[in-house]
């Protein structure tokens, strides 16, 4: 097996005294969608924040394409190829849609490449092109989520971390967002680590999944296995 794009080995993260991640290990291979499911407070967002360097693990190793990024500051990690679409979207409210997308390509100085990427984003999200001069803060929830993902794509990362992309969205939009995630993989080969409350929908689009419970991985397997695992069904699918 070739080197995974992303690899976490026994990662421990703390918030002050609170032991939030108690030895998380996982891998994401190229072109895969891997989802991390778990209840609120299990440490899903903490895992993503640890990967992108917003939090620093006290123990363990995070590797991107085989290189350790455990003690690399977040802005360097972005440069190395991780795009993180944070929980709550993190759209810059006072910047226009275009400026928000520009921020995604902050590190890119090549105009031609910039134009190529932004074309691609508008291809995936035609709605953003319609709203190009609008301020980020005036977009609807669904549009903001699209903008956040689009901005992540502007970084053209080796792996895209999506944190609760369906949070707070109406059922109609949830469906649309998951369709887009599926398209990203199928048409653009994007590697994605997806954190979701909505386990049902996440498992529909993912290749593999991990279950996180109070800071520990308790279960892993293919998405299909998970969808039929009685424990998963009882705890996360609510059927």
């Amino acid at each position, binding site marked *: 097996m070739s080197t995974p794009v992303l690899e976490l080995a026994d990662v421990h993260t703390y918030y002050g005294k609170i032991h939030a991640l108690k030895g998380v290990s996982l891998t994401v291979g190229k072109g895969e969608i891997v989802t991390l499911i778990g209840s609120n407070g299990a440490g899903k967002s903490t895992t993503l924040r640890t990967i992108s360097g917003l939090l620093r693990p006290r123990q363990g190793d995070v590797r991107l394409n085989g290189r350790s990024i455990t003690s690399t500051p977040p802005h360097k990690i972005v440069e190395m190829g991780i795009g993180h679409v944070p929980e709550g979207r993190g759209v810059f409210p006072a910047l226009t849609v275009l400026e928000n997308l520009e921020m995604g390509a902050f590190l890119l100085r090549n105009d031609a490449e910039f134009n190529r990427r932004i074309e691609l984003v508008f291809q995936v999200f035609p709605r953003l092109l319609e709203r190009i001069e609008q301020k980020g803060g005036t977009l609807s929830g669904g549009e903001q989520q699209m903008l956040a993902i689009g901005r992540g794509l502007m970084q053209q990362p080796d792996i895209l971390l999506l944190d609760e992309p369906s949070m707070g969205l109406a059922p109609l939009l949830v469906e649309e967002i998951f369709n887009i995630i599926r398209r990203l993989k199928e048409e653009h080969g994007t590697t994605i680590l997806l954190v979701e409350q909505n386990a049902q929908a996440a498992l529909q689009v993912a290749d593999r999944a991990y279950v996180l419970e109070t800071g520990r991985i308790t279960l892993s397997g293919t998405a299909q296995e998970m969808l039929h695992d009685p424990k998963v069904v009882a*705890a996360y699918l609510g059927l």
Partner: protein
Amino acid sequence: MSVILELNKVTKRFGGLVAVNAVDLRIATGSISSVIGPNGAGKTTIFNTITGIYRPDEGDIRFDGQTIVGMRPDRITAQGMCRTFQNIRLFHNMTVLENILVGAHTKTPSTAWGAVLRTRQFKRAEEEARQEAQRLLLYVGLPRGLGDQLARNLPYGQQRRVEIARALASKPKLILLDEPTAGMNPQETESATRLFRKLRDDLGITVVLIEHDMKVVMGISERISVIDYGQKIAEGTPAEVRTDQRVIEAYLGRHAESTIISMH
């Protein structure tokens, strides 16, 4: 059927943005109703306008037969309306019991002079308030020993319950719950839903919810109002709303019937 809360053509603007546009709403006494709609449609703004945090630019809001437009939020609470918040706004550095005691503010008759002089009346009022708070703690399904914990140290689901206990301490006739099951897993959601029904059945409190979880909304509500772009686009029983073409287009989506499972 008597109406406890009535909104007549209520409009709220922020600068040029019309967040709530001429919304009419009637909540029957003793009912359980929901307000649903896409994110940013103006649901929370409606709650904020009802509870006096915002003042409506136009229209009238009547609670229990009396207009409450322009009334201070604390006065409205004293009239018998209380709420919870979308993103849980407990007093994080106060204990659980203290949180509930703040909720009982309007119902605790102790005064500052009484506190300074340690009058008998003060002591009695404090003692009674404490006992009542303890009772509420148990009522919403929290363990007895939790009272002395700091609110911030509680897990999410319990924080939601403390928030409901805090609201109940004001002895409301009407309680407004803003996305009360957001971030809960299916089991927690189910037991929370049971609690909402208990509030109405045991205590006779009128319940209004904002909710995204269609399972909760469809399962518990007697009437549903659908808001989109600040306007009410539909209203009716769950069955009516579920099949309303405009609601499907604006909110539920084509697969409405099949996706009504656990989409929050």
